[in-house]
């Protein structure tokens, strides 16, 4: 009776049920905010995320297929005046070309990942992105590797050109990666040329900001920003991005720099989960600390 979707019981029962559900919601929100990443509700999120991963993959595949079909239809329409035989042949070529182009791009991305792996001496596992965030307030992706492959929470994740995020939840076969562009991300970083230290944080605009800089730190456009490894949240020495804008002049204590992100969520297809890298003292993959800027307060991932 009380579980009816459309309650037709008395007004009193409905009010009691409403009050109960409101209290339960508030209690869960409070518990979630207070518990750690290993808490019951966090684990429940990881389980549900893993459970719906196949559905996400189906959606992403269907979306990709629809895009390809749309492109093919557009090409066919452009050749509407030609002979039907040539149109069919052309369509076949277009399809083959699209397939080859897909392979070429995938090969390019994988080669970049392998190059990156060699450059940094990375021990890790490659993974395919199988799901984008289910809500607008998250900047997370789902990958097809989980604890069975050694992937655990806290591990750094790289795209083809550098760090893109960190594993925040993992089950046996899938894992959720919070991108650097998520406002809740925070990575301790240094400017490679001047060794100025700060924290790279995401934002709702999708930009990365290098914050908490010393007032006299030297930062200029074009400087490369890398992870510092402080706090153990991210593996040390990996490229985060390049400074594209500095908001205030040197000496200003509140200045920050805009860092160009390596990749956006929609562009990510293959990633590399880093177990360890050259020069890393091994504390970056311990699965604790610094995952959430929000959890760490002002210090973010650098604390």
């Amino acid at each position, binding site marked *: 009776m009380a579980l009816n979707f*459309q309650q037709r019981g008395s007004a009193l029962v409905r009010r009691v*049920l*409403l009050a109960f559900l409101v209290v339960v919601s508030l209690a869960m929100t409070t518990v979630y905010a207070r518990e750690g990443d290993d808490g019951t509700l966090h684990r429940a999120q990881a389980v549900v995320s893993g459970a719906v991963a196949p559905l996400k993959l189906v959606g992403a595949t269907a979306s990709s297929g629809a895009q390809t079909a749309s492109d093919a239809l557009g090409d066919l329409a452009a050749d509407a005046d030609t002979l039907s035989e040539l149109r069919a042949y052309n369509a076949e070529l277009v399809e083959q070309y699209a397939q080859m182009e897909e392979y070429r791009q995938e090969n390019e991305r994988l080669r970049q990942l392998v190059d990156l792996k060699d450059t940094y001496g990375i021990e890790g596992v490659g993974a395919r992105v199988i799901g984008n965030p289910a809500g607008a307030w998250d900047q997370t992706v789902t990958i097809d590797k989980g604890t069975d492959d050694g992937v655990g929470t806290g591990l750094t994740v790289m795209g083809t050109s550098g760090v893109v995020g960190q594993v925040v939840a993992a089950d046996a076969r899938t894992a*959720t990666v919070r991108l650097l562009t998520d*406002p809740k991300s925070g990575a301790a970083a240094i400017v490679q040329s001047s060794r100025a230290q700060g924290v790279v944080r995401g934002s709702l605009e999708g930009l990365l900001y290098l914050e908490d800089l010393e007032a006299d730190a030297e930062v200029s456009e074009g400087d490369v920003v890398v992870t510092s490894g402080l706090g153990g949240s991210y593996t040390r020495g990996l490229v985060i991005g390049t400074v594209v804008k500095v908001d205030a002049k040197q000496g200003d204590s509140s200045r920050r720099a805009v860092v160009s992100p390596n990749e956006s969520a929609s562009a990510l297809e293959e990633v590399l989960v880093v177990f360890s890298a050259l020069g890393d003292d091994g504390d970056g993959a311990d699965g604790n600390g610094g995952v959430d800027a929000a959890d760490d307060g002002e210090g973010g991932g650098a604390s």
Partner: protein
Amino acid sequence: MNLTRENVVVAVGALVAVVLQVAVAPNVAIFAAQPNFLLAYVLTVAIANPLGAGPVLPFALGLLFDLLGTGPVGGMALLFTLASLAASRAFAVLDNDTLFMPLAILVAASFAVEMLYGILLVALGSPVGLADAFFYRALPCALYDCVVALVLYPLVVRLVSGAAQDRGPRTPRLR
């Protein structure tokens, strides 16, 4: 549990909304705006059947939305429940048989939920400004939710009202 045809229709609709949220929503995002099919469905059900809409459906779908993401569990469950109640009560009082009133309530409720969720995230320590939350998420997402709700509304009205035995379909009129 009372298995009336109306309940079955609403439950099947909820299942479809969940599938759409997981499989479709991430792939139809426009910049940062992503539709919330679950919210749109909850609100349309609340408005389509203001006297019969209970708190369980919005709570369940809100909780599922929370579990699908990485935000605070219970946040959307609370907001869905309250928004559904407010929307159904508002429509029961303000309905004037025009299309304007459900649309206005849908817009207001969608925007309120998205904005309150942003405020909740900020209150729980998410390092974003309220202005950013408003302009970069709440506003575009609420608009997207409204578009989805407007598409769903006639369908849900027909299905829910058609499934109910005690009244005919409600057909809003443009005035």
